[in-house]
């Protein structure tokens, strides 16, 4: 119900481009450090762990492939989604929740502005647009993390590693990851807005809204990750 109304406001004028821009910067740019750090460490751990595993089968050569597939298909979108859910989903729920309990949302209505259109639609648009970009950057950083560990710690040949990464990466891996990212962006912003919009009863209500936004977004991300993977790759 809420998401239907919200989506319909995304595609109907008037648009608040200024708000969309502000939200894009907030979601995209300011999330880069945390998403980047997450990506580089998961890339590094992935290389290290798969080395331990593959060494038992003398299949160390497959590390580059494993890293790039795991990052682009799975870890990039999911980890970035979870981090952004914590960062952005919580902030949105808290901000909109505070606006609700201080009557700012009522004030919007009395000033002939639809709160859904002004508050919720720009955030949804920004979330769906920015998450794929973030995940794309995270993919690159994650692969780079795997490269660092493989080359400097495990003693792989740098150009061989890059070559096998490049040979193995398939467009559909990356694209499926980016589609997931867009869906996660929608989930995160929708949950943040929904719980904030419906928060009740002062500071405690806003706190509860924040918790619910992060928890529900995280669970939905993980379940939709499975559903989307099933849709893309199961036959």
């Amino acid at each position, binding site marked *: 119900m809420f998401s239907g109304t919200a989506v319909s406001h995304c595609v109907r004028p*008037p648009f608040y481009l200024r708000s969309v821009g502000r939200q894009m910067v907030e979601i995209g740019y300011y999330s880069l450090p945390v998403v980047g750090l997450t990506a580089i460490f998961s890339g590094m751990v992935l290389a290290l762990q798969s080395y331990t595993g593959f060494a038992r089968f003398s299949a160390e050569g497959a590390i580059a492939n494993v890293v790039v597939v795991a990052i682009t298909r799975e870890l990039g979108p999911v980890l970035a989604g979870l981090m952004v859910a914590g960062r952005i989903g919580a902030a949105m729920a808290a901000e909109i929740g505070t606006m609700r309990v201080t*009557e*700012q949302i009522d*004030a*919007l209505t*009395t*000033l*002939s*502005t639809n709160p859904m259109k*002004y508050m919720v639609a720009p955030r949804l648009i920004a979330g769906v647009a920015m998450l794929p970009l973030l995940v794309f950057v995270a993919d690159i950083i994650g692969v780079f993390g795997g490269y660092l560990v493989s080359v400097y710690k495990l003693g792989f040949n740098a150009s061989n590693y890059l070559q096998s990464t490049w040979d193995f990466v398939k467009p559909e891996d990356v694209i499926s990851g980016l589609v997931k990212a867009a869906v996660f962006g929608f989930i995160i912003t929708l949950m943040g807005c929904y719980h904030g919009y419906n928060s009740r009863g002062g500071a405690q209500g806003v706190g509860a809204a924040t918790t619910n936004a992060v928890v529900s977004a995280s669970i939905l991300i993980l379940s939709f990750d499975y559903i989307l993977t099933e849709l893309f790759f199961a036959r």
Partner: protein
Amino acid sequence: MNERKPKIRVRDLHKAFGEKVVLHGLDLDVGVGESVVVIGGSGTGKSVLLKCILGLLRPDSGSILIDGEEVAGIDANVRDEVSRKFGMLFQGGALFDSLPVWENVAFGLLSLKKASRAEAQEIAVAKLAQVGLGSDVSTLFPAELSGGMQKRVSLARAIAADPEIIFFDEPTTGLDPIMADVINDLIVKTTREMGATALSITHDMASARKIAHRIAMLYEGRIIWAGPVEDIDASGNDHVDQFINGRAEGPIKMAVRA
């Protein structure tokens, strides 16, 4: 005052939240250009009444006429047209803290595309001057202002689009007596200058006496007494007497929770 066709006419308004009945057959008339203050204890449904008229809450039954036009339970699109006649001063100010003061004041103008950003800023500065704030305030953010200044900015925002009806939700709550009087003066001055109709709710009797032409007392979901402000001391109603004199003893029993 036009008695035949009031600006706001509320008839038999009912609103309940679950089991809790808040408004129980409320009738109220506000004439054109008149200032009516609804008084009543905390939790008697004053805010709910305002929100029903504003369309923020949907009444369970009853009728609300604005200029003779039914607005209770109408569609959101039509509601938009009616809302343009309204200005509202919220209890806590409800300023948008992500926007500078001038954008707050000009928000309604900008959202209706009545003015370009440059024009809107000029209008905002003029409205701020009307409530006694200098142009240096216009670029500050709401969080940088004192409570009294926030109330003034909020008043400036309520009058920015030259509304026909202005609603005041406890305009003096949380202010010291002097600042409260300043706000009262501003309310009287601005509504009179604009010829606007005003409906206020408050439990501050000093404020009510100052800004009201007529006072109505809300108790147990109904208006139990209404009359000109001069008559309030001789209302002959025990409930009103108790309320305006602020006595704990009387027919009104406050629910005191331990």
